[in-house]
Every structure is written in C-alpha cells, then in structure tokens.
C-alpha cells in the first residue's frame, strides 16, 4: 500500500490542509466508513423519500470492497484527512475505451466514486473539505499512466456531477448508457488527461 501526500481545502477557513491518498482501502478505512460515514448519511436521509436521498446513499462500501478483494485488476482508493475518511473510490484496469479515437484501447474505469457526507455542500454548509473529487480523478489518471494506459479514464457520472466532468475536467460526454440505468458515460483521452495533470 502506498500513501501519497495531497491537499484538500478546509471549507471553513479556506486554507489548504495536508491529507493522504492511499492506493488501497484497508479494513481500517472501512471501519471509519462504518463509524462515521454511515451514521452521517443515515441522519441526512432520515424521513426523506427515495428521490430526495443522495444517489449513493445505499452504497455498501464493505460489500463493494469485499467483492473486489483479491481480484486482479481492481483498485480501491481512500482519502484520509485529520484521521477521518474523506472519500472512497473503486476502479478497474480491465475495461476498454468507447471514444472513436481510442476505441478498444484499455483504460481505467471508475466503478464507484463518493465523497464523505460532510464534504458535500448539499448536506453540510460549509462542507468540511473540498477537493476530494479532483484528487480521485487525478489518482485515476495517474493509475492509468502507471499501468501503461497513458491517462485514459472512463466513468458513468452520477447526475449531479455531469457538468463537473464535462466543463471542469475536460471529459468527453458520450451520452446516456441504458446498461447503467441511463447514466451519462464520460471518457478522457491521453491528451485530455495530460491537460488535466498540467492545467493552470
């Protein structure tokens, strides 16, 4: 397991604070998910109808992690700051690109990406930390580079994040995918990934 130093922005003071990205989510991270993340999500969802709950409110990261454990090609990543879990991501390196200019080439596919409830402006104002999503995308691109996929990444966006991937991160929108409950599929090419890594 490798730990990388990263930075998040404190939502209250606006200062950058040091945090850690782990390229393997451990049982300790999942224990933090159980201890803090689940109760916070349950508290927010209490009394709300299905349509009012966050799209990932029912995700069971223990089950997701267990399913991926020991499988070659699957990666679970965690971000920790101030001893608290701030986000989780699962990605695989056994998927292929769909964009015409890179069709069939291997890429990193982001299976699941979520930030902790207290980092979401819709749940907590101000959010505790911002930047978790950016760091995970950077990590997915670096993972892609490290396995020789030149930064190619694909994902199905949750509805609230579509404009972020398209307008803020330079992903190409490929349209609604009926095999994934109509979610919009996005992909980033090696050149777009390079721009993401070097952008000012």
């Amino acid at each position: 397991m490798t730990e990388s130093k990263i930075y998040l922005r404190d939502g209250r003071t606006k200062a950058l604070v040091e945090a850690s990205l782990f390229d393997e989510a451990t049982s300790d991270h999942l224990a933090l998910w159980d201890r803090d993340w689940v109760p916070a999500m349950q508290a927010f969802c209490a009394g709300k109808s299905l349509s009012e709950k966050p799209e990932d409110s029912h995700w069971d990261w223990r089950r997701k992690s267990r399913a991926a454990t020991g499988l070659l090609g699957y990666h679970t990543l965690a971000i920790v700051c101030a001893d608290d879990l701030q986000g989780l991501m699962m990605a695989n390196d056994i998927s292929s690109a769909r964009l015409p200019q890179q069709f069939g080439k291997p890429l990193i596919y982001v299976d699941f990406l979520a930030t902790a409830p207290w980092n979401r402006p819709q749940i907590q104002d101000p959010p505790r930390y911002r930047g978790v999503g950016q760091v995970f995308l950077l990590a997915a691109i670096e993972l892609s580079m490290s396995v020789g996929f030149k930064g190619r990444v694909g994902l199905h966006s949750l509805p609230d994040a579509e404009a972020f991937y398209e307008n803020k991160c330079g992903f190409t929108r490929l349209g609604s995918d009926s095999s994934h409950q109509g979610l919009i599929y996005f992909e980033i090419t090696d050149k777009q990934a390079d721009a993401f890594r070097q952008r000012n």
Partner: protein
Amino acid sequence: MKLDYLKEWFERNIEREGTFEIGAGIPPTPSAVAPVSSQNVELLDTRIAFGQFVALWRRNKGWNAERLASAAGIDPEEVLQIEYDPHALPEPDAVYKLAKVFELSPRPLLELAGLVVGRTPHLREEAIRFAARSESIKALTETERQAFEAFVATLAELKD
C-alpha cells in the same frame, strides 16, 4: 501508484469543484449483462414468482417497499429490484433477512431466487401456478389511479 504533485496544483484546481456533488458509478443493470441460457429461463420463472410473493406479502400487510426494506434491514432498491427485475440476482443476505420478516424458512426462498440449486419437488411448477394466479385483475384503487394518471401526465410532457 504514487501521486507526486506540488501544493500549487491543489491550490489552483480545487476551486473548480465549486458546489458540485461529485460522484460516479452505478452497478450495471443485471438484465443488460446476464447471459441467456435455458437455465436462466427457468430461473426467471421462479424469480417472477419470488418477486410477486414479496410484493403481495407486503401489500397484504399494507406496507410500502420502504417499510419492508426497513423491517428487513436492506435497501429499498433491493426490494424493488426483487419485485420488478427477475433478471437481477438477489443478494443471499437480503433473502435471509426477508425470510426472517416473513417468518419462513429461507431455503425455499433461496431456491425461488435461484441462489441455491433447486431440490424441492414441484417448487417450480407451484411457483408458476402462483405467479399466474396472483397477477392482479382488480381495478385500480383511487390512490393507484391518481398515481397512474400523474405518471401518464409526466410522460406526456416529455419530448423526444
């Protein structure tokens, strides 16, 4: 894999997140990935019956899907998936929890769900008979009619 970026990269880029709620991923729809085989067709028969049984059980109690999910300690989405998508393979854990709420042995329910090899004589035939007889032929209740008309109105507003 190690990230080796200067603090300035984060300083420049975190603001781009704005107030977006960032997330990705959803499991593929099981019916879109399940291979078709004669065994699957048999499983579909029993899963349709399983789904109808779950739906009738809760309706008999006057419960909605959320209430059943809450009683069993599973996701409402799992209840709806069991009731409406016979292509979906239910989680064994969910079937055990539902069996507990129904006060039934989990074994036949696991068989119906296709999670264990069928060994109960005539279970499939009984399941098909149940599924065929239990399809509602009753007129819609007032609540159902209102929900139906509201949904039709929503569909009518949608453009191509």
